[in-house]
């Protein structure tokens, strides 16, 4: 196909990423506090979206549990407070959510996709109830104050988490795991018969996707000051991740990122003055996208969609 010298197309993508990386790392030098905080939020939404896409896009199992893992991250950060340095707090949150997701996966991913959807949907509410009960009966206090960190530290942590996530996502796509995931998404039965341990792959990747969400939650909590189960476990996070991914389009690497940036920006515009309108608009956008542009925005740009969002599957 291509010979010798690099073509412009091949150069373009690494160059673009290089520029973005430099801009992101030096951001705090030239941007205002407001901008840094805004961009931190935008990056957060990119993390939520890309994490969701990591598992749900190739396999077709729609996870509605993003908010649950995010909340786990937030609460880990709140509970551990300053007992541990922040990096360890984040690590703990990551491990906790990995474990939780692995259990959920082991329980549901060997069955039809419906069960996975049901279970992950209710997970957010479940953990909320567990914490509420715990707080009422054991500690006697509702909610917690969170040790705070400055916006620059949080920005860099979020940036780091995102960088690792994007790298992981990229490597998985190009690796055996990615091949296994796509095969599972195409035909679980055939994938199993080709030697792929379907349940294990699904569970592991699902658990991996939860890690980034929880880590981000642990970091973001430091900006919030006070959290309680209602604040930490909000379905909006699950919904946002899904809506952004679908809107942006999941077939290309850049799709979810585009969707997340667009929505996060829109959110910033509307959230303070029109919170209900913002969520209403998101809901409308999701429905309209499904109805008229199921491949997402990125399809318009590339016109060469490769994979589609598959549905809940029969077991292998």
């Amino acid at each position, binding site marked *: 196909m291509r010979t010798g010298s690099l073509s412009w197309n091949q150069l373009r993508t690494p160059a673009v990423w290089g520029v973005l990386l430099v801009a992101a790392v030096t951001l705090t030098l030239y941007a205002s506090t407001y901008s840094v905080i805004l961009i931190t939020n935008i990056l957060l939404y990119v993390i939520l979206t890309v994490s969701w896409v990591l598992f749900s896009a190739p396999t077709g199992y729609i996870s509605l549990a993003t908010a649950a893992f995010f909340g786990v991250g937030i609460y880990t950060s709140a509970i551990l407070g300053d007992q541990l340095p922040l990096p360890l707090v984040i690590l703990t949150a990551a491990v906790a959510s990995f474990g939780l997701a692995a259990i959920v996966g082991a329980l549901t991913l060997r069955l039809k996709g419906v069960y996975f959807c049901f279970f992950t949907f209710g997970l957010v509410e479940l953990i909320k109830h567990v914490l509420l009960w715990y707080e009422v009966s054991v500690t006697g206090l509702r909610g917690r104050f969170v040790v705070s960190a400055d916006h620059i530290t949080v920005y860099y942590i979020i940036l780091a988490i995102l960088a690792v996530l994007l790298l992981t996502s990229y490597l998985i796509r190009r690796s*055996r795991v990615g*091949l*296994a995931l*796509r*095969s599972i998404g*195409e*035909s679980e*039965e*055939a*994938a*199993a*018969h*080709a*030697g*792929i*341990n*379907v349940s294990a792959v699904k569970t592991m990747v699902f658990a991996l996707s939860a890690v980034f969400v929880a880590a981000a939650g642990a970091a973001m909590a430091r900006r919030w000051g006070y959290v309680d189960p209602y604040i930490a476990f909000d379905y909006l996070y699950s919904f946002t991740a899904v809506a952004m991914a679908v809107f942006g389009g999941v077939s290309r690497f850049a799709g979810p990122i585009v969707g997340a940036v667009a929505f996060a920006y829109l959110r910033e515009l509307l959230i303070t003055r029109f919170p209900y309108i913002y969520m209403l608009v998101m809901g409308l956008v999701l429905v309209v996208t499904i109805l008229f542009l199921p491949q997402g925005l990125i399809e318009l740009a590339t016109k060469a969609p*490769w*994979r*589609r969002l598959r549905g809940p599957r029969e077991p*292998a």
Partner: protein
Amino acid sequence: MSLLNVEGISKHFGGLAAVSRVDLQVSEGEVVGLIGPNGAGKTTLFNLLSGALKPNAGSIRFRGEDITGLKPHQICRKGLARTFQSVKVFGAMPASQNVLAGAIFGNPSQTSLKQAGEEVARQLEFVGLTAQADVPARDLTLANQKRLEMARALATKPALLLVDELMAGLNPTEVAQAMELVAEVRKRGTTVFIIEHVMKAIMNICDRIIVLHHGEKLAEGTPQEIATSRTVVEVYLGE
């Protein structure tokens, strides 16, 4: 040497017995045919052998090892591969990636990506799909999709290959080519157990034929014996 030993295998769904106390045996190097009217339980039997279904009773021994109740990916890695009646290729992926999946995951001996790639090229060439290596599987003709499935299964380096209705939907030329392919597979050292409705094909390529009817083994023998067996003829003509 006995490769596959099935004893008393049964499977029912609710009240219906799909497969009922079937005993059979496949020896290394054979091509064994499995025939029977529609609904006789042939694909169900294959599903039991490949691990897609769990039997209610009976046992399956492969290469001396009890594989009853193992999961499909485990059975595949032990050297038992299959193709499907309704073709299950990975549609959006190019043909080469379809085969690559089998080469990487189905073969228990350590493969580097480079070796797997070579295996893919080999199998694509074997089934005659080298030119279509980059074509998305769903854009292939039915005959080619079946070959692709075959290549994917062969890439897992099976000792025994279950072929489920390879010839369905193929025109006479394609049937002849498919028959040749099966013969080649056997020549290269893979034992074949094949479900087929196309009588001409079965009679020509099989050493031995097993007849299933209503989930039970009705008859077993050489093509000659089966063709002249009164019970078999009745079953087929009576249906």
